[in-house]
């Protein structure tokens, strides 16, 4: 198990290295002057030259790359061109919104999806199954921002249980922050839960057809016991894969939802940075997201090995 973890850790490091090279090359090395791009078409040559100087674009690519990487390792992501504050501070603020939001949404989606998928699989072909399949089909088809607007209309405008948007900050207390994230988390979670419930259902149905379920029944386990004791853990592997993908998506993919609810999250930061041509922020945030995705993949790999003894030896 330790060997497995170490080998996965090694590949994590290599992926990060590769990603940093690709990002750096895409933004700073590929022809086209980043400084001219950032300043737009009407910039004077003097302004461009000044910015080039500020960005340190004069040096060799390799030196600049090493500076960038070693800076990041020290927590120095540079200075945002538009906000004029360290990118690290900017990102840290946003992470305080995005990570709890993604975690909240993921927890909701898991809590909804796993029991629903289990329920549908156990009653395959029955009315419950048909109802669940129909509902999840709808959940996948309807875009999450539409859900979001619906939620705002019902729970904020009509019932006035939640505010329609904005984030008070965690300084205002855990509960107000939590409350502000609830509607966005639900809007994000529902489509994800629909996907996850379907994956859970089909994985369970496949597992239930396996010979070892028949063996378990021959030992005297009831259908429910066979599902709980044997099918569930075997069905978890595809579910974990989807969960990992969903977390990565939720971290940065919440742009639209963050806009609907006026949340100062990572998605909005990168969106604004791109429209304002703030390449320094873009570069750092993309790198951070890559790191998050790779880290999640690593954790999913560890979870696979925890579930399935066959993977531990590799």
């Amino acid at each position, binding site marked *: 198990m330790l060997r497995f973890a170490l080998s996965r850790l090694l590949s994590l490091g290599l992926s990060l290295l590769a990603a940093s090279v690709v990002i750096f090359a895409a933004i700073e090395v590929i022809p086209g002057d980043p400084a001219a791009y950032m300043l737009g078409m009407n910039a004077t040559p003097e302004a461009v030259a000044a910015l080039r100087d500020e960005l340190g674009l004069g040096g060799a690519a390799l030196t600049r790359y090493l500076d960038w990487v070693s800076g990041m390792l020290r927590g120095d992501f540079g200075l945002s061109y538009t906000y004029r504050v360290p990118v690290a501070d900017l990102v840290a603020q946003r992470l305080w919104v995005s990570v709890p939001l993604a975690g909240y949404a993921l927890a909701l989606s898991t809590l909804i999806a796993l029991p629903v998928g289990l329920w549908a699989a156990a009653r395959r072909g029955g009315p419950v199954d048909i109802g669940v399949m129909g509902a999840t089909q709808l959940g996948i088809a309807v875009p999450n921002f539409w859900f979001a607007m619906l939620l705002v209309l019902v729970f904020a405008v009509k019932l006035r249980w939640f505010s329609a948007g904005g984030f008070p900050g965690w300084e205002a207390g855990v509960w107000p922050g939590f409350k502000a994230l609830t509607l966005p988390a639900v809007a994000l979670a529902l489509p994800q839960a629909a996907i996850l419930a379907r994956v859970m259902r089909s994985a369970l149905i496949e597992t239930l057809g*396996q*010979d*070892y379920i*028949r*063996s*378990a*029944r*021959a*030992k*005297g*386990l*009831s259908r429910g*016991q066979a599902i709980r*004791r*044997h099918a569930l*853990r*075997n069905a978890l592997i595809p579910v974990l894969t989807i969960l990992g993908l969903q977390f990565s998506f939720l971290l940065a993919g919440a742009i639209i939802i963050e806009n609907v609810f006026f949340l100062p999250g990572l998605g909005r930061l990168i969106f604004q940075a791109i429209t304002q041509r703030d390449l320094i922020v873009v570069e750092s945030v993309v790198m951070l997201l890559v790191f998050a995705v790779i880290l999640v993949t690593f954790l999913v790999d560890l979870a696979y090995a925890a*579930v*399935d*003894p*066959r993977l531990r030896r*590799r």
Partner: protein
Amino acid sequence: MIAVQGLSVAIGGTPLLRGVSFGIDRGQILGLVGESGSGKSMTALAIMGLLPPGAHAAGRVVLDGTDLLGLSEPQMCDMRGRQIGMIFQEPMTALNPVQSIGDQVAETLVIHRAATRSEALRAARRRLDRVGLPEGRFPLGRFPHELSGGQRQRVCIAMAIALRPQLLIADEPTTALDVTTQARILDLLKGLVEEERMGLLLITHDLAVVAGMADRLAVMRAGEIVEQGPVADVLRERRHPYTRALVEASAHHPGADLRPTDRPLLQVAGAVRDYPQPRLRLFARPAPFRAVDEVSFEVRRGESVGLVGESGCGKSTLTRAILGLEPLQGGEIRLDGQAVSAGQRMQASLRRKMNVVFQDPYGSFNPRHRVARLIAEPFHLTGRPVDADARVAEALVSVGLTPEDRHKFIHEFSGGQRQRIAIARALITRPELIVLDEAVSALDVRVRAQILDLLADLRARLGLSYLFISHDLHVVRAITDRVLVMQAGRIVEQGPTEKVLRAPEHPYTKELLAAAPVLEVPP
């Protein structure tokens, strides 16, 4: 002890079992034989109360005075595992891959509240010891993937007998195993029946297995028991024509007298195939695993050569190398004087000369193609001749089907017919060598006899050579002139089939022969 009386099962009005009746006493073994689809497994599942959804059972299944068919599902759950244990055909998939063997055996006791977890684990230990998995090599924490098929079947047996049930049902328990493993598992079952005074319902398609094991024999066909009685009597008298047909087919020998030529067709000289092993330490290069070790032999034109050995002995690797699908690390393979080597594109002329028929008549066809396209598939490699359609028709006729069959899909055919289509596909390029990789192993005895006849006939008519890979010595005896015995990558004995099987010299050949169940039919 258990009496099945007039058991009938139907799914949606279609009867699957009709009035099945038999009884088993303590310490007695009843062999239930029949071909696939005859209702053997359905009988077992009906006794277990594990029929597929939609199936309805009628009649009586009386165990110690209780009619099992009248019990509720929770009552039946209590019976399963406690009073009736069951093991299945496929040990590779019969165990939960993510749970240790100790937990799986102990679960039988835990689920019936017969013991606490720690007591159950101690009991599991004793049961695993009993079925031949001692603590030293098989601690409770082992996972199924660390065990071989035979070892897994032992775990399944330990699981089924953990609570010392009165009746054990074994549904084709050794069909997926090698002969030597089969012999050991059958021995184990027999010992357990004597020791525990259990009744055993042994379901199998192999008369030879039953003949050596059972006290009584019931022959099943199309959902009915056509004949039953003490084994020796049933085999001697064979009152029902179906029993006669089964016995004859089991001992079938296509009686063609063919004389192979002296000209070599396939020459394998010093063939070596190494597989790299996974790296255990970062800088230590592991020793490769030698799957085929300096193998040399010849197949002459018109000759049929058998290759026997247990799973893992290297038969399949050698076969793939001959077909040009595996590179060799040493030696060479020549077909009709031309070198066969993997990795490079094989010349169409060479490719045309050999073809292969695989074991599984269900998995080796694309279900979305029509038969004509399936059979014509080898033309992708050799170029499509102008008379391709005529040749497809010709191939179908030569395997006993009709040209019209080419418009059908593969699911419209039975297992035996599919294997005929596989042979037609192999014949389409007019090859000289056909490699038959366990080509009749998945077939019922009567169908197998027909396919063996077909193969003998084709060989006589077309002058084909066969390389016949099988674990079944009877089949090898029936269809080959010479036999090669392979063990751990090496050919340990070779010679004329009759001679090798009558007077084996190598201990391994002797072991294989001793393990193979023999059906001795009284005249």
